[in-house]
């Protein structure tokens, strides 16, 4: 006997898995095709935030898999995604990797603020 709420949960889990797989595929495609490190960073962040988090939403909705562990991992991924992207982008800026196709670079006009140690 399948109740109504179980059917709703199953449909929600299927939708979350399909959308998460789609975002992972789009992220890897962007990592292949985009021209620059700074633009590729968008794609690499999308695999972390949308792909894995939507799969974990499906794991939290589906009842026998414990939802507490999935919520802890969702919180950790949402907290760890932006510092990782910031660290990679800051490292790329500080070893002077070029931006392809950029008309001008605003951060290059301020060498003092660019070279100081932030911590």
């Amino acid at each position, binding site marked *: 006997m399948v109740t109504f709420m179980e059917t709703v949960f199953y449909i929600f889990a*299927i939708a979350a898995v399909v959308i998460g797989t789609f975002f992972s595929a789009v992220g890897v495609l962007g*990592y292949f095709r985009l021209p620059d490190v700074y633009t590729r960073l968008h794609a690499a962040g999308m695999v972390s935030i949308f792909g*894995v988090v939507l799969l974990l939403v499906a794991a939290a909705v*589906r009842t*026998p898999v414990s939802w507490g562990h999935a919520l802890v991992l969702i919180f950790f*991924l949402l907290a760890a995604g932006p510092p990782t992207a910031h660290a990679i982008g*800051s490292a790329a800026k500080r070893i002077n990797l070029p931006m392809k196709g950029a008309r001008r670079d605003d951060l290059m006009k301020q060498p003092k603020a660019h070279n100081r140690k932030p911590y």
Partner: protein
Amino acid sequence: MEDLLLTTLYISLLIHVLLVCFAAWRLWNGENVIDRLMGSDMLSNLCLAVLVLAALIHRQKIYIDVALGLAAIGYITIITLAKYITDKRMF
């Protein structure tokens, strides 16, 4: 409904394994060091997705605990390597 969810999960697992292969190939001939660092971050996230799919298929929560440990190790590794590349030293 159970069979439909299992079919979706197996197709998603196949797609994720193919994505891991493509990302590893692209990571092997990346152009510079930041590119390879970012690719290793993305590869660890794809392995995380494979572990979560294994937890969903086998209905066991131990895979999600393993994924939590892998996520923590990957986060600290990426932050430390980015700082090492920037400053030529870690601390």
